[in-house]
C-alpha cells in the first residue's frame, strides 16, 4: 500500500480540507511514528468516529459522546497499529450510524469532494470523502445498511463490506448488531485486499467473529472474470435514472462478457424488494434503541443535571441526541412492545429470512451479483433528507440485502455524471471475498478509473 503523504502530512491535509469538506470530527494533532514494521508500515489511516481508539476522542458524531475518550482500543485499532499504520483522524458520520446522508452529524454535514454542494452519503461519509480527496489510502467505516458502499459510490472510491463475522466488531460503537459490519474505503482493489487481510480474523471478544482462517487476499489476487458466472441484477439496473449511467453499466456488462465472464440476468420479486426498507428500519431501529441505552450520562458521556438519577438520565438523553435519532429510538421501542412485537419486530425478522432465502437463491445461478450501487448520483445537501418515511425506493436500498444475508459486498466507481461519480455494486456468497476481489480487480482494469475530484489533498 502506498500513501501520498506521511502521517503528519495526512493530518495537515485533512485539516486543510476541513473548511470545504468538514469530514473530520477529530484530527490527531501530531501523529506519532509507529515503530511497527508491518504491511501497513507508516500508512496514515482514518477511522470512522464510531471506532474506539484509546486516548483519542470518539463521539460517533453524537453530542452525548462529545467528551468521550475511550479507555480501550477496538480490536481493529490494535490490528492496524500492529501492522504499522498511524491513526490520523476520526471521520464524521451520521449520528451513531443512523442515516444515509452524513447530514445528521453533530459537527454538521460532510461535503462531497467532487462537488461540495452535494452529500457524501452516509453514514460513513467522512471516511469516504477523506479517501476520495486522497488524504489517506485507507479509511475505516462501518456498514449496517450500505453505510460504506453508498458513500463510496457517491464519492468515487472503493467501499468494502466483508462478510458479517469476518472482521471483529469489538470496540465499534454499534448501531444494529445483527447488521453492523466493519469495512473500509480504498482507491484500488489491491489495497482493499491487503486491508482485509490485516483487519480480518477471529476475535474472542466478539462471539460472532468467524473462526475461518484468513486467506492471503492480496498475494492471491488474480484479476479475472474468466469462467465466472456474473448475475446482472436486472430488477435494480432496469431502474437506473440517468441515460449515461445506464449506458456505462450496459457497456461494463458487455466488457465483462468479452473478458470471459458468463452473464446471466437475475431478478427478484418487486413485492419482496419493496419490503427491504421497512424490514431494515424495523430491525435496525429496534436493535439500536437497546444498543444505545447505555448512553445515559451516568458513567461516561455528557451529563446534564437533574434532581434524581432518573432525571439526569432523561435530561442527558434528551439533550444528547438529535430529534431524528430520538424518533428512531421511539420507533424502535414501539416495534418491541409486547403487543407490537409479533406484527412488527418478529414479522420483520421473518421477512428478513424470506429476503435472504430469495437472495441466496439468486446465487444458485451465478457466482457474483452485479448491480448499480445507486440509480443516481449524490443529491444536493439541501435537497436530501433521511426523514422520508414511506418514500423509500428499493433500487436505492437494495444493497441492504448484503446486510440481511451477511454476504461480502463492495462498490467501486464506474463513471461520472454531471461531474459526480456513480458506481457499481458486486456481491458474493459468504466468505467468498477472494472471488469478489479477483473479479473487482478485473473490473478495475476494464474501467481504468483515472478521474480526480475537485477537492484534492495537496
Amino acid at each position: 500500500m502506498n500513501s501520498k503523504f506521511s502521517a503528519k502530512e495526512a493530518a495537515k491535509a485533512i485539516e486543510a480540507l476541513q473548511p470545504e469538506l468538514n469530514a473530520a470530527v477529530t484530527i490527531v494533532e501530531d501523529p506519532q511514528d509507529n515503530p511497527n514494521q508491518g504491511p501497513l508500515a507508516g500508512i496514515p489511516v482514518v477511522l470512522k468516529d464510531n471506532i474506539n481508539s484509546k486516548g483519542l476522542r470518539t463521539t460517533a458524531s453524537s453530542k452525548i459522546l462529545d467528551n468521550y475518550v475511550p479507555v480501550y482500543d477496538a480490536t481493529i485499532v490494535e490490528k492496524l497499529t500492529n501492522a504499522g499504520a498511524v491513526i490520523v483522524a476520526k471521520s464524521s458520520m451520521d449520528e451513531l450510524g443512523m442515516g444515509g446522508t452524513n447530514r445528521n452529524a453533530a459537527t454538521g454535514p460532510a461535503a462531497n469532494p467532487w462537488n461540495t454542494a452535494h452529500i457524501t452519503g452516509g453514514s460513513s461519509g467522512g471516511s469516504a470523502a477523506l479517501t476520495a480527496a486522497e488524504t489517506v489510502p485507507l479509511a475505516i467505516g462501518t456498514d449496517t445498511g450500505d453505510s460504506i458502499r453508498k458513500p463510496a459510490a457517491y464519492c468515487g472510491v472503493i467501499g468494502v463490506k466483508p462478510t458479517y463475522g469476518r472482521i471483529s466488531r469489538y470496540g465499534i460503537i454499534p448501531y444494529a448488531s445483527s447488521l453492523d459490519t466493519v469495512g473500509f474505503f480504498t482507491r484500488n482493489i489491491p489495497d482493499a485486499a491487503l486491508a482485509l487481510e490485516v483487519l480480518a480474523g477471529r476475535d474472542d471478544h466478539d462471539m460472532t467473529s468467524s473462526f475461518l482462517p484468513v486467506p492471503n487476499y492480496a498475494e492471491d489476487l488474480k484479476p479475472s472474470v474468466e469462467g465466472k458466472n456474473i448475475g446482472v441484477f436486472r430488477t435494480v439496473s432496469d431502474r437506473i435514472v440517468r441515460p449515461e449511467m445506464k449506458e456505462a453499466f450496459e457497456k461494463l456488462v458487455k466488457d465483462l462478457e468479452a473478458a470471459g465472464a458468463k452473464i446471466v440476468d437475475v431478478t427478484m420479486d418487486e413485492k419482496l424488494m419493496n419490503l427491504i426498507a421497512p424490514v431494515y428500519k424495523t430491525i435496525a431501529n429496534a436493535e439500536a434503541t437497546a444498543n444505545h441505552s447505555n448512553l445515559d450520562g451516568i458513567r461516561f458521556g455528557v451529563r446534564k443535571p437533574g434532581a434524581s438519577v432518573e432525571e439526569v438520565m432523561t435530561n442527558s438523553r434528551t439533550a444528547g441526541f438529535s430529534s431524528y435519532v430520538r424518533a428512531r429510538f421511539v420507533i424502535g421501542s414501539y416495534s418491541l412492545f409486547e403487543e407490537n412485537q409479533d406484527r412488527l419486530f418478529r414479522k420483520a425478522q421473518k421477512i428478513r429470512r424470506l429476503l435472504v432465502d430469495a437472495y441466496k437463491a439468486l446465487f444458485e445461478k451465478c457466482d457474483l451479483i452485479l448491480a448499480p450501487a445507486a440509480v443516481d448520483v449524490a443529491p444536493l445537501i439541501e435537497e436530501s433528507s433521511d426523514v422520508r418515511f414511506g418514500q423509500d425506493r428499493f433500487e436505492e436500498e437494495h444493497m441492504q440485502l448484503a446486510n440481511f444475508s451477511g454476504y461480502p459486498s463492495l462498490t467501486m466507481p464506474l463513471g461520472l455524471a454531471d461531474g459526480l461519480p456513480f458506481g457499481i455494486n458486486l456481491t458474493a456468497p459468504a466468505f467468498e471475498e477472494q472471488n469478489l476481489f479477483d473479479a473487482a480487480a478485473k473490473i478495475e482494469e476494464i474501467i481504468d478509473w483515472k478521474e480526480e475530484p475537485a477537492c484534492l489533498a495537496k
Partner: protein
Amino acid sequence: MSREVTIGIEIHCELKTKTKMFSGAPVSFGAQANTNTSVIDLGHPGTLPCVNREAVRLAIKACAGLHCTIDPLVKFDRKNYYYSDLPKGFQITQQFHPIGKDGYVTIETEDGKKNVRIERIHMEEDTAKQFHKDTGTYIDFNRAGTPLVEIVSRPDMHSAAEAAAYVEALRRTLFYLNVSDVKMEEGSMRCDINISLSYDPEKLGTKVEIKNLNSIANVQKAVQAEIERQNAALDAGEEIIQSTRRYDEPSKQTVLMRKKEGTVDYKYFPEPNIFPIRLDQAWIDSIVNSLEELPEQRLSRFEKDYGLSSYDATVLVNDRDMADFYEEVMKHTKAAKKAANWVIGDLSAWLNKNGLNFAKNPADPKAIARLITLIEDGSISGKQGKVVFEEVMKGADPDQVIKEKGMIQVSDDGALLEMINKVLDENPKSIEDFKNGKNRAVGFLMGQVMKASKGQANPKKANQLLTQELSKR
C-alpha cells in the same frame, strides 16, 4: 373455612465462578468498590459480551440437581429497562429459552415430604449495587455482570413453613453442588416471594411480592406475617394491592416498598451479539454424571447406613461441613447415634461458643471418634467424656487424658457391689420408699453410688446392680 394461601418463589443465585458472566473481570464479594470491573461491565460503547463457559457448567449442574430438562441450545435475550444500576440499559438473560425447565425439589415440613415443581432455571447477569446516602446515590459496579441463575418455582407452596423449607432445600442443594455460596446475608442468594390468598383455589388472589430477605428464618417469619396481614385486610373488607413489600425485623411486619402499577414491558428480544450455542451432549453428560451427592441422597444414606433418625440426619445434612465431619468421625467408630449426638450437641456448642463453625472446625475426627468409642464401651462415663472432650479440643489425645486424670470407670462387679451395699446400708429410708412404690428413690440412691465412686462408677452397670440389690432387701 380459611383462605387458601398460594406461594411462588423466585430465587437469584450468584454462580461461584472466577470471572463474570460476559466479561473477564474477577468476581469477588467484599472487594473495594469499583475495583472488579471492566469496560464490558460498565457498558462502555462498543463492548461485546462473551459467554462464561464455567457459568454455563454450573447452571447445568443446578439444572441436573433440581431434576430439570436441560436445553442443549443456549440462547440469550435482552431485557430492556433504564436504571442506574444497569450499565447497558438492558440485562442479558434467557427469557425465551431457559437452560432448564420442569424440575422439582423435595421439601420436608411437619406435614411430611412433598415435591415443589420448578418451572424454569435461566442464566443472567447481575446488576450493580446501589447505596442511597444523604450525600447522594453511590454505585458499586463490582457486582455488575456477576453470573446468576434465576430459579422460578411453580405456585406449589401453601404455608410459611413450606416456603422456608423450599428456600432451605434449594440453598442446601446448590451448596452441595458447589454451584453457589448461597449466602443470603451477603446477597449471593436472594429470594422474591409471591403470596396470594383466596377462598377459591382455582382463582388466585392479588399477589404481593416480598423482597430483601436475609435469612431462611426471616423467610418463614415474613411469609407468616404477610399471610396474617392479608387475612386481616381481607377480613376487614379491604382490597389487596399488587405491590412489593419487605420484612421489617423490629416490628415483625411486612412494609410496603412500592406499588406495582401495571406490568413493565421489558421489550425482550434475542441478544444479537451472542449466536445460539449448541452444547456438546457429551459435555452435558459428563457434567451430569459427575454430580456431587445431593442432600436428599445423603439423607437417605445417613438413615440407612448409620441408622440415624430422620431428625438427626436432617440436622447433619443441612450443614454440609457438619455432615462431612460426621462422616470422618464415622470412619473411626461404630457408635453412629452417639457420634451424631456429640457432633450435633457438644461439638456444635463448643464451636458456637468459640465463634467458629464446621467450616473452620479444629477438631480431630479421629480423636473425637476415640472419645465416643470410650464412652460407648463404658471405659469412661458420659460426664467424664465431657471433661475429656474439652481437652481433646485443645489437641490432647483422649487415652492420654484419661490416664493422666485417672478416669478409668469402675465396671468391676465386686467393687461396685461393695459400694452399693454400703450406700443401701446407710439409707434404710430410701429402701422403704422404694418398697412403697416411690421410684424416685432409685434415682437418689444412684446419685449416692456415683458420689461414693467419685463419679467413676459405670452408670449402666451400677444401675443394673443397684436394682438387683434393692430387690434382695
